[in-house]
C-alpha cells in the first residue's frame, strides 16, 4: 500500500494549474485536491498517476459566495465548510444536514465538494445534491470555460463529462425558494460508510399542494439522478403519507439497481423505497 512513483506539482494560480493540466493530462496527470478518495486508490495502486497537480495553493479556488441566485462553490472548499450555514437561504440548512452524513469528521476537514463531484462515486452525497438541485458545473481548461448541467455531468460509476485537461473549478448551486422544504435520508451499514441508497428531496407547498418537486436518488444506480416518476407522484398532491408512499414506490420501480456482494437488486430496490419515503418524511420535520 505504497503508491507508485509520481511527481507532485504545486501551481499558485489557476492559469498555472490549467497550463500544467493541459501539459500533463496526456501523461496521466491528475488533480489533487483533498485527496480523500484519490490517495487511498493510489495506495492500493488502483490508480498510478504519473503527475499530481496539487491545487491546494491555488488562489481564488476557495470561493464560497452567493449572488442571490446561486451559491458558488470553488474547487478548494472543504466538506467541513458546510458544517455551519453558508448562505441566508434554506439551501444552507440542506447543505449542513447533508454534510453531516459525509464519511467522518477528519475526512470532512480535508475532502472537497468539487473533488467529490469529479470523483463521481455513485454514493456521494454531494453528487446526489447537485443532481437533485440542478447545479451547473464550471469546467476550466486552457481551451476555455465550459458550463455543464448536472444531469449531463455524471456519466456512470466514477466517470464524468470532464475532459482530461479540464479542472472542475466551480459549482453553481441554485438557491432554493424561501419557502422550500427539503428532506434527506441515506442507509449504510455503519455510520459514515458509503450509502447503499440515499435520497434528497425538495419541493414547495402551494395552496396546500406539493409543487416543483425534486426527488433525487443516489447510491442505487451508476449515477445519482432525479426520478421524474416520483416527482410526478408528488406534484399536485398534499404532502403526507399517501403521496410519500406513492412517490417512494414510483422511485423504487424506476431505478435499475446496482448490485454488489452485499447488496442484490431486490434489496437495493427496497432500500430506495425506504430512503425516498424517509427523506420525504424528514421534509415535514
Amino acid at each position, binding site marked *: *500500500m*505504497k*503508491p*507508485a*512513483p509520481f511527481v507532485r506539482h504545486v501551481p499558485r494560480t489557476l492559469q498555472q494549474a490549467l497550463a500544467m493540466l493541459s501539459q500533463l493530462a496526456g501523461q496521466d496527470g491528475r488533480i489533487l485536491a483533498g485527496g480523500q478518495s484519490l490517495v487511498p486508490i493510489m495506495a*492500493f*495502486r488502483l490508480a498510478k498517476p504519473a503527475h499530481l497537480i496539487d491545487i491546494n495553493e491555488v488562489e481564488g479556488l476557495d470561493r464560497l459566495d452567493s449572488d442571490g441566485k446561486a451559491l458558488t462553490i470553488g474547487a478548494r472548499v472543504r466538506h467541513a465548510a458546510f458544517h455551519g450555514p453558508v448562505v441566508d437561504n434554506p439551501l444552507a440548512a440542506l447543505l449542513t444536514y447533508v454534510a453531516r452524513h459525509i464519511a467522518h469528521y477528519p475526512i470532512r476537514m480535508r475532502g472537497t465538494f468539487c473533488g467529490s463531484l469529479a470523483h463521481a462515486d455513485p454514493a456521494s452525497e454531494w453528487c446526489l445534491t447537485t443532481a437533485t438541485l440542478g447545479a451547473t458545473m464550471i469546467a476550466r481548461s486552457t481551451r476555455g470555460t465550459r458550463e455543464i448541467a448536472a444531469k449531463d455531468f455524471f456519466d456512470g460509476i466514477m466517470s464524468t463529462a470532464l475532459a482530461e485537461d479540464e479542472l472542475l473549478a466551480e459549482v453553481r448551486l441554485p438557491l432554493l425558494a424561501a419557502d422550500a422544504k427539503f428532506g434527506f435520508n441515506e*442507509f449504510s*451499514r*455503519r*455510520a*459514515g*460508510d*458509503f450509502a447503499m441508497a440515499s435520497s434528497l428531496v425538495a419541493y414547495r407547498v402551494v395552496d396546500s399542494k406539493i409543487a416543483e418537486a425534486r426527488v433525487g436518488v443516489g447510491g442505487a444506480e451508476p449515477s445519482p439522478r432525479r426520478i421524474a416518476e416520483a416527482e410526478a407522484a408528488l406534484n399536485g398532491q398534499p404532502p403526507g403519507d399517501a403521496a410519500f408512499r406513492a412517490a417512494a414506490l414510483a422511485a423504487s420501480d424506476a431505478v435499475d439497481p446496482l448490485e454488489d*456482494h*452485499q*447488496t*442484490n437488486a431486490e*434489496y437495493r430496490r*427496497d*432500500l430506495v423505497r*425506504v430512503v425516498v419515503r424517509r427523506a420525504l418524511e424528514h421534509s415535514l420535520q
Partner: protein
Amino acid sequence: MSNPKPKFVGRSVARLEDRPLLLGQGRFAADVSFSGQWHMRVVRSPVAHGKLQGIDAAAALALPGVHAVWTHQDVAHIPPIPFRLTGLVELEPYRQPILAKDYVRYVGEPVAVVFATDPYIAEDAADLIELDIEPLAPVLAASGATGPFDAERATEPSIIRKSYGDVDAAFKAAHAVVALALSTGRHSGVPMETRGAVAHYDEARDILEMHGAAKVPWWNRDHIARMIGRTRTNMHLLEGHVGGGFGIRGEIYPEDVLVCAAALAFGKPIKWVEDRREHLIAANHSRQQQHRIRAAIDAEGRILAIDDEFFHDNGAYMRTHAATVPDLAAAMLPGPYRVPAYRVAGHIRLTNKTPCGTYRAPGRYESTFVRERLLDAVAAKVGVDGVEIRRRNLIATSEMPYDLHLETLGTHIVYDSGDYALLLDKTLACAGWPALQADLKKRRAAGEKVGAGVAMFVEKSGLGPSDTVRVEIRKDGKVEVITGVASIGQGVETAMAQIAADALGVDYTAIDVVHGRTDRIDQGAGAFASRVTVMCGEATRLASTKLRDKVLRLAAELMQTDASALDIVNGEIVSRDSTGPSMTLAELAQAPPGDLSAEDTFLSSHMVYPYGVHVAAVKIDSDTGAVAIERYVIGYDIGKAVNPRLVESQIAGGLAQGLGGALLEEFVYDDHGEPLSVTFADYLMPTSREVPDISILITEDAPSPLNPMGLKGAGEGGANPVGAAIASAIDDALQRPGAITDLPITPQRMKAICRQN
C-alpha cells in the same frame, strides 16, 4: 506469615502501560529500524488455486535499489511451519511452506519476496514480477462430498470425534428431537497494528534477533531457530508494544521465517511491515463452520443427548493451530448444561481461501452459537421461555467439580467451580428482566420489532502446564518481575505488578514487569487461552512470596532481630511493633550478599472455567433490515478479579468483536475464490457508533479451587456468546423462534427474513 498492606489485588488501579502509549512513545514493530536495513515485500498469489509454472523476476531485479528476489528454490531447505497446538499427525502434509512450491492455494499466498532499499521500491519491484500460473478450479465449499484438494492431498484431512454416554439410546427414548442447521461466518481478529517483523543478525555476538514478536515468543524462537538451522541459545525474539493480538497475531507465519533467514543470508537487517490489504488476506482467518445439531429431550425440555456434526472451513493450509479450533468447538459445545450423552464429529475441510487459526474464544463463539440456538429451539418445542429452559438444564453447584468426560488441549475438562443459576439470576436482575420483558411486549403490541435474548456459556482459561517467574530487587530498590508471558495490550504489567506488590509489600508502581523477551528468561509459555493472569499470576505470587521471605531473613541478620518480627511496608523493612530501626529495600540490596532474587514455578494440569451470561435487547428496522442493539448486559464470574477495570475493558473489547461477527464482519469470496473483503470499506469492523453502551457485572462467587487466589481468566467471555445472544433477541423481536440460523446477520439477510413474515 501474614500478607502486608496495602492491598492492590482487587482494585482498579491505573494501568502502568499507558504513559508511553498516550505520549506517542510506543514502540511497535514498524517503529523498529536498524541502519542499513533492507525492506522486504511479499509477492502474493493473485489466484485461488493454480499450478505455479514459473516466476520471472528479471525486470524487478533490474530496478535500481532492488537487492534480491527469493522464490521457493531459495528457501527449499527450510521446512514448512510446524504445529504449536493440537498437531495431529495426519495433518502434517497440510502444513504451509514459507514460499509456495509448485502450487498456489489461496489468494494472498506468498510466492516470492523482494528485498530493496526502501519499501516503495520493494513494492514497485514486486509489481514487476511476473507469475506464470495455470489456474485450477478452486474448492470453496467446506461441506458436501470430500474429494481431492490437489494432486497430493484430500479436502478432508481429519475428523475430530468426541463422545460419551449412549447417544443412540437417548435418541430412541426421547420424548422429542429438535434438529437445526446453523452456520457462523468467516471473520477474524483484526488488530489495529498489522503484523511486522524486523530481523537483525549481530555477527560479533553471533545472535540473531527478531523484533515484532508477540504472544508466544519462546515457542517461536525455538521453532524458527530449528527451521533455519540455528539453536535456541543464539537467537532471540523481542516483543515491543503490540497493537492487539486476539489469537491471530504472534503465531509463526511465513514472513517471520523469511526475515530471519534473509537477515542471516544477506548479513543485513531485514524489515517487513504488513499493509492492511495483506493483513486481510494473509493473517489467520477464523470462525467459518456449518453445524447440523440434534437434541434428544424429555417432556420438560431436559436434554437427554446432543449429537452434532460440523464442517470446519480451515482454508488452504493447516497453520500453527492445526486442529485447535475445531477441537475446542467440539469439546466446549456442551457448555453449562447437563448433557447426559454427547457425540460430535467435526470435519476439518480444506478450501482455497486464507488459512485459519484461533480467534478470541476460538471454537466457542461457534459452538456457543449452535448450543444456545439449540436451547432456544428446545424452549420453543416445549413451550417455555428461554430463561426457564436454561434453568431446567443448568449444571447445579452441588455437581461441582463437574467432569465433562471430554479432553482438549491435552487436558481433561473438569469444570472446577461455578454457580451458573446464581449468575443467571444476578445478570437478569442487572438487566431488569421482568420490566424489560413488559416494556418490550408493550412496544411490540404497538408495532415495534423489539426483543431480548439470553445466552450462557462456560469459558476455559489458565492453560498450563507451567509458568516460571523470577523476581529481583535491584540496587535502586526497584523490583523487577521477569515473566515468560507476553503483553498484547491486555494489562499484563499492571496485573502482575498488583500481585507482586501485595506479596512483597511494595507499591505496585515500584514494579517493572518484563515480558515477551527471550533474552531475559529462558522459558515462557506466552499469552493465549486466557492463561496469563492465572498461570503467571500465581507464579508471580509464589516467587514474590519466596523473595519476601528471603528479604526478611537477610534483613533480620543485618538488623539483629528475628525475621518474624519484621514486615515490608511500602518498600521499607520495618518491625511489626513499629519500634526500632528500619531499612529500605534499596539499602538491603546494596548490602552484601546482595542477591535479592527468587524464582518459582506454578504447575497446573487442568484449566479453570469461568462462566457467563449475556443479555441483549435489539430493535429491528424491518424496512432496511438494520439491527440496533438497545441494551447489552454481561455477567461474568471469573473467581477473583485482580483489576476489575481491566476485566471490564477485556469484556467490552470482546463484545465489540463478538458484535462484529454477529452483524458486520465477514470475509466474502466470489465464485473464483477472489477475496472481496480486502479493505476496511468492505470488511466492516464495528466502530464506536455501532457498539452499544454495556452493563458489566463481574462476580466472584466461584473462585477456582485450583489456585490460591481463586483466579480464572477473563479474556474471552466478552466475545463468546454474542452471536447467540443477538440471534435470540432477534427471534424474540420477530416473535419467530429459530428465525436466525446464520451469522453474520447482515441487513440484506435480515430484510429477507423480515419479508418472510
